[in-house]
């Protein structure tokens, strides 16, 4: 049962990745200009006409886009992401260098956002009409209206420039020991910026779900029959967590999008910053590799959320939705 369900999800994820790659490939090839230049970016100027033609033939750049895509796809599924046109190194190597940093930033921020929003949202949702309840709505709207990178700029100007206690960029000190403390010091500001601009809105969503759930019929029935408050609250929380998880899943894509900007601001050497750099240097193979790996991260996070939901929501397990 579960394996079939997971299988279906995985196939969906692969289809998504396929569409992503096709769209981005097509978008970049539909752009005007000579294909070799598009492919080789800035380096193309150093090539003469014959070399350009040779490159075009080798990479079948003179063929229709769909054929080129087929060629690219064939190489990619075999694990060959090509070579960065700027650095000349294999794209897969570059991606693997960056992946740990992105994973670190993502997991740390997600962890604090989830823990924080569950705490705030539960307190606010369970105490209807209290200060927490009213305050959270306003604060969450306000905090989600702040552009994360701007908050980052303010942080840098205060903590790095004025107080000089935190590094303004990078993942570790140049010439430092590369130890854990060093990494944490660099992580604090980018992580704080993402957490502060996101935790409110997730907390608010949970708060609203809890409020909706508290007005359900079964809660009234349980209350009327003297069921212990703790027991009722446990039930409410469990049910409210289903739409909350769904919401996390829905916002994961834009969450990754936002992280790209913050990574760039703090020069956090992750996939997002890599993508921006690749776009600036028009490094086609690297852009495609970056898009695919960020897509893969999104798809796998969604799969994890789906699995958690599968555990929480018995209706999903019993297939009650499809009926």
């Amino acid at each position: 049962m579960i394996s079939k369900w997971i299988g279906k999800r995985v196939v969906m994820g692969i289809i998504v990745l396929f569409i992503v790659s096709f769209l981005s490939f097509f978008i970049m090839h539909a752009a005007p200009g000579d294909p070799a230049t598009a492919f080789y970016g800035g380096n193309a100027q150093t090539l003469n006409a014959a070399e350009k033609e040779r490159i075009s033939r080798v990479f079948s750049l003179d063929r229709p886009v769909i054929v080129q895509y087929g060629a690219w796809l064939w190489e990619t599924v075999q694990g060959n992401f090509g070579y960065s046109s700027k650095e000349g190194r294999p794209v897969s190597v570059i991606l693997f260098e960056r992946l740990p940093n992105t994973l670190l930033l993502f997991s740390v921020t997600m962890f604090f956002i989830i823990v924080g929003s569950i705490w705030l949202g539960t307190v606010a949702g369970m105490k209807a009409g209290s200060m927490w309840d009213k305050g959270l709505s306003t604060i969450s709207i306000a905090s989600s209206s702040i552009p994360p990178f701007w908050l980052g700029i303010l942080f840098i100007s205060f903590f790095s420039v004025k107080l000089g206690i935190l590094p303004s960029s990078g993942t570790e000190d140049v010439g430092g020991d590369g130890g854990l403390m060093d990494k944490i010091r660099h992580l604090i500001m980018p992580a704080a910026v993402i957490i502060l601009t996101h935790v409110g809105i997730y907390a608010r969503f949970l708060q609203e779900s809890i409020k909706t759930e508290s007005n359900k019929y079964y809660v009234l029935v349980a209350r009327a029959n003297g069921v212990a408050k703790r027991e009722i609250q446990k039930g409410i929380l469990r049910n409210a967590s289903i739409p909350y998880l769904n919401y996390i899943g829905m916002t994961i894509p834009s969450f990754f999008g936002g992280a790209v900007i913050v990574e760039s601001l703090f020069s956090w050497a992750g996939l997002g910053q890599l993508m921006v750099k690749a776009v600036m240097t028009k490094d086609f193979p690297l852009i495609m590799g970056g898009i695919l790996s960020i897509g893969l991260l999104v798809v796998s996070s969604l799969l994890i959320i789906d699995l958690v939901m599968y555990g929480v929501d018995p209706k999903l397990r019993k297939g009650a939705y499809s009926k």
Partner: protein
Amino acid sequence: MLNVDRLTIEIDGKCVVEESAFSVRPGKITSIIGESGSGKSMTIAALLTILPLGAKATGHALFNGRNLLDASKKEMDAIRKTHIFTIFQDAANSFNPSVKMERQLYTFSGGRRGDTVQQFRTKMTGLLDELELSVDILKQYPFELSGGMLQRCMIACALYVAPDLLIADEPTSSLDRVLQKEFIELLKRLNEEQGTTILLITHDLDVVVEVAHEMVVMQAGKVVETGSVATIFKQPGHPYTKRLLDSRF
């Protein structure tokens, strides 16, 4: 057992139940009858102090000598837990959809009386069997059972706790004819065999004739007539009751 006097309920300043008075005598089945919107369900909510936000109840509702309307939260919790059991109209939505039946039935029955899960299992199995429900439902979720089965589960809990007072708020309106009949029989049995006092809220005169000993007629937020079912059916005193009875034949 229950004496309600001058009960008035206001929602946001609007009066929905006005100066109503009736009593429920021990060992009897008393029925409150009235159209929807007559204030029946609000009266029950007030007795159980589960009124919606913005609603306020004044007057007296003496339950074994204790006024429910000014009882503290703690006292009320204790009364709801040990003395009264309430079955609601919409059985399909009376259970938490993502918790297994066993856990929920336990909190509604054994858990209230401090029984262990083991004790609960033994006793509940017998009751379910009596109600022609398979024990397997304990391992299932509410959405896998029908409305009729869920309502019978509620009855099973009522049988289990044997409360001083059983309140049933339109328990049959979401069931089909056959199930309605079964349900009425169960109420009767509960009353006759265990001597449970029952307060039955309904809009269905047939149900009243079938089971109730005494009845309270409500119209537009007011109690217009009270008395034994036999007397009222013979000699309705209030014009509304008359109309109600006439419409039945």
